C-alpha cells in the first residue's frame, strides 16, 4: 500500500509507478478501479480556515467529520450538503473531503447553493506525469487562467490525485422547517416542487418520495424569516393540498434521509439520473424501478432496479445522464456523444498519458 505523506512523495510514487494505481481516500464511495493501492490517509488536516472570509483549505485525505466539526464550531457549513455513501454502499471507514470532491458529491441543497464544484475554489493535485499542479486558490472570485478546479471536481480521480482542496463555506442556517405535502402523484409532486422553487421564498431542498407519498420542501434561515416564508410557501403550495410543517429537528432528520438516499435501501442496482426536472415523471414511468426518490425538484432521480438492468436503454432519448452508484450492471459512468467523448478522452490522455488512474 502506497501511503504518501507529502505531495513530493506522491509525485515520486506516481513517476515510479509501473502500472495502474487504485487511489483511495476513505474508500467509502466505492470508486471502481484496480491496481496498486495508494491512500491519501497520510495527507490530512485543515491547513487554513478563515471564517471571516468564508474559506477553508484542507489536505485531500482529511476526514469529512473533521471538517464538519471545525465548521460547526464557527456556525458555518459546507454549502453543498455532501451525502454519506456508507449506508447505501454498505461501506466502512471515514469519508474524506478529497473523495467528496473527486465525485462532486452534492446533496439536496445543490438545488439552491450549487454543487460541490460550485463551492470548490482551489485544488492541488499530482497528474499522471508526476507533475504537481495548483489551480484556483483561496479566494472565491478568480478567473486567472483556465478553471481546472471544475475539471478536477467529479473527474473520479482520472486526471490526477488530489492533494489539497480550497472551499467556499457558508454561515449555517439559524433554523429550518420543512413543508410536507401528502399523496401527490409524481407529476403533481414535480409541479408542486417547481412552484416552490420558482417562488421567492428560497427553498433549499425539494424532494419527493413516491413510496411514502410525501413531497418535502425545506426552508432555512433566521427564525422570523423561516416562519414567514413557511407561511407564504404554504400559500403557494395550496393548490396541491394542505402542507404539514416539520420543525427544525424533524426537518433535519428528513433531509439527512433524503441526502443519503435512504429510500434506496434493499437489494439491487442503484442509479442516479440527472435530468431536466420536468422530465422526472417520464424517467420514473419508463424506469419501472423497485424504488425511486426524487431530489432537486426532480432534477435528480434515484432509482433501484434488479441487478444488471440496462436502465439507459429504458431512458433512451431523455436528455441527461445516468450513473450506476451500486451494483454490477452495465458501465457505471454514462457514455458520451462522439464529439464530446473525443474531447474528454483527449484531456484524460494529456493528464494521464500512461493510464495510471484508469477510466472509472
Amino acid at each position, binding site marked *: 500500500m502506497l501511503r504518501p505523506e507529502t505531495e513530493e512523495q506522491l509525485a515520486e510514487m506516481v513517476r515510479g509507478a509501473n502500472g495502474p494505481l487504485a487511489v483511495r481516500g476513505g474508500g467509502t464511495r466505492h470508486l471502481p478501479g484496480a491496481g496498486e493501492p495508494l491512500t491519501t490517509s497520510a495527507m490530512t488536516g485543515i491547513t487554513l480556515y478563515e471564517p471571516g472570509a468564508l474559506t477553508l483549505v484542507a489536505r485531500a485525505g482529511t476526514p469529512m467529520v473533521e471538517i464538519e466539526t471545525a465548521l460547526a464550531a464557527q456556525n458555518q457549513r459546507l454549502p453543498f450538503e455532501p451525502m454519506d455513501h456508507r449506508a447505501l454502499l454498505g461501506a466502512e471507514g471515514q469519508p474524506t473531503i478529497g473523495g467528496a470532491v473527486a465525485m462532486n458529491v452534492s446533496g439536496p441543497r445543490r438545488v439552491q447553493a450549487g454543487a460541490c464544484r460550485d463551492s470548490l475554489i482551489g485544488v492541488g493535485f499530482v497528474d499522471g506525469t508526476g507533475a504537481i499542479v495548483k489551480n484556483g486558490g483561496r479566494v472565491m472570485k478568480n478567473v486567472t487562467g483556465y478553471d481546472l478546479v471544475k475539471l478536477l471536481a467529479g473527474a473520479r480521480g482520472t486526471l490526477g490525485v488530489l492533494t489539497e482542496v480550497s472551499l467556499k463555506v457558508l454561515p449555517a442556517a439559524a433554523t429550518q422547517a420543512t413543508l410536507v405535502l401528502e399523496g401527490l402523484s409524481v407529476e403533481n409532486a414535480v409541479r408542486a416542487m417547481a412552484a416552490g422553487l420558482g417562488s421567492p421564498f428560497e427553498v433549499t431542498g425539494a424532494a419527493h418520495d413516491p413510496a411514502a407519498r410525501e413531497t418535502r420542501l425545506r426552508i432555512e434561515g433566521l427564525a422570523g424569516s423561516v416562519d414567514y416564508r413557511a407561511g407564504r410557501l404554504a400559500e403557494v403550495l395550496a393548490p396541491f393540498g394542505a402542507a404539514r410543517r416539520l420543525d427544525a429537528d424533524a426537518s433535519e432528520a428528513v433531509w439527512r434521509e433524503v441526502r443519503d438516499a435512504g429510500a434506496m435501501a434493499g437489494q439491487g442496482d442503484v442509479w442516479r439520473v440527472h435530468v431536466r426536472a420536468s422530465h422526472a415523471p417520464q424517467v420514473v414511468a419508463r424506469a419501472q424501478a423497485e424504488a425511486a426518490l426524487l431530489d432537486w425538484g426532480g432534477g435528480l432521480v434515484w432509482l433501484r432496479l434488479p441487478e444488471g438492468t440496462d436502465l439507459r436503454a429504458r431512458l433512451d432519448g431523455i436528455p441527461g*445522464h445516468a450513473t450506476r452508484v451500486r451494483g454490477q450492471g452495465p458501465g457505471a459512468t454514462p457514455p458520451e456523444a462522439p464529439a464530446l467523448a473525443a474531447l474528454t478522452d483527449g484531456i484524460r490522455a494529456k493528464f494521464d498519458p500512461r493510464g495510471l488512474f484508469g477510466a472509472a
Partner: protein
Amino acid sequence: MEMPKPDPFVLDRKAELVSRLLTVLPEDAVISDVEETRAYECDALTAYRCPPLAVVLPRSTEEVSKVLAICHEMRVPVVPRGSGTSLAGGALPTADSVILGVARLTEVLETDYADRIIRVQTGRTNLSVTGAVEADGFFYAPDPSSQLACAIAGNIAMNSGGAHCLKYGVTTNNLLGVTLVQMDGTVVEIGGAHMDAGGLDLLGVICGSEGQLGVVTEATLRILPKPEGARPVLIGFDSLEVAGACVADIIKAGVLPVAIEFMDRIIIRIVEDYAKAGYPECEALLIVEVEGSEDEIEEQLGLIEEIARRHEPVALRRSESEDESAKIWLGRKSAFGATGRISDYMCLDGTIPVSELPRVLGGIERLSKEYGLAVGNVFHAGDGNMHPLIMYDANTPGQLETCEKLGAEILKLCVEVGGCLTGEHGVGIEKRDLMDHQFAPEDMEAQMRVKDVFDPKWLLNPAKVFPLAVTAGRRAG
C-alpha cells in the same frame, strides 16, 4: 504590450480568405474594408489597437462552424468577440486575424419557468436576458457593471461576476449548458437543462477560457425567482481598516448579504459629482444589500447595523425608498464611467482574502504615492474582489507605462497576500505577462494542455492569457 508579428503568409492571402468567407456568409456579414474593420480594432482596453484582417458577423451556429472550418484550413487566427466590453483586451485583434463577432446572435430560444432555465444565443446582452423574464418575476443573476452592453458570450468567456455574486455566484455557477463550435468547425453540445456533468466537467473549463477553446453560440442559463424586495444600507467609516474589519464581522455573524460594496474617498467624490447618489463624505463607504420581505429585510438590517455600530461608523443610513435604492446602485455601477469622464484610467481586478483588505489598501496607497498616480478603490468587498482605478493622462508621454508598472505592482501584491491577478475581468493581454507571478510552469502547462486538446493548432485567440514566450512553441505549431 507585445503582440505576435502577423503571419505574412496569411496577410498575403486576404483576398482568397474573404472570397471563401463570402461563399458561406451573406455579403453584409463579412467586413474586409480596411476603414470599416477599424470599428473592431480594440475593446474597452482602448490603449491597444490593431485592425483585424477581416470581421465576420454570422447569424447561426452553422455559419460560425463554416467560418471556423475555413479559417482552420487556411491557418488564420480567429479572435471571438462578444460586445467588445473587455477591460483586459480579450477581444484585441492581430493584423492577421479574423474577428468573429456574435453580435447578430441575439435570439431567446427557449424559456421554461418550471425548470427555471432560459436558452439564448450568446450575442444577447446580459441585461436583456433578465429583460426577457423579469415581467414573469425572474432574473439572471450575474450582473457585471457593463450589463447593459456586454454579451453572454463574453460573460462566459471571462466567467463574469458582478456585485451580487456573494449570494448568487458568478457565470460558471449559473451556466448549465452550451453549444460550442471548435476551431475546426466541429459543433459540440455540452451540458443542457440538467444539472452537473456525467463525465468530465468540460463546461467548467470552457467558462472562463477567454475564447481560446471554442466559440460558444448558444447557452442554457439558470434563472431565479426575483426576491420580494431588496434594500441597501450605507455605512461610512473614517478609516479603510475599520471598514475592512466591519466587512469580516458581518460575514462571520452569519447573515449573508447579497452584496457588500466598498468605495474610498476618491471614488465617493467622483461618483457623487456624477450620479448624485447621496453618498456621505467619508474615507470608506460600504453599501450592504439584503433581500426578502419587509420584515426579513428589517431582521437582517437590524443585525448588520448592530455590527456596524460596534465599529463606530460616521454615517449609517438605510435606503428609504426604491428610488433611493436605485440611485445608490446607479452610483456604484457608474463608478468606472464617472471616473472615465475626468481622467484616463486603468481598472484592475485582483482578488484578495478579505482578511488582507487593510494591508492591501495600505499597500496600494503607498504604491500610489511612490508612482505619483492617484488610485481610487471601488470593489466587491464581500468576496475580496478589488477594483483599483489608476488615473493617468494618456497624452503625457510615459504615463501609460508608469500606470502599467504601478498596476503590475498592485497585482503582485494581491498574489503575495494569497489572492489572484483577476477576479472577474480575465487575463486577456493585460495581465498575460504577470501569469508567472501566480503560476509555476507546471501549473500553466496543465492549463495549456487543455487548449492543445480543443484547438491543437492554437488558432483561437492565441496571443492571450499565457505569456507569449510560454506559448511561442505551440503557436508556431
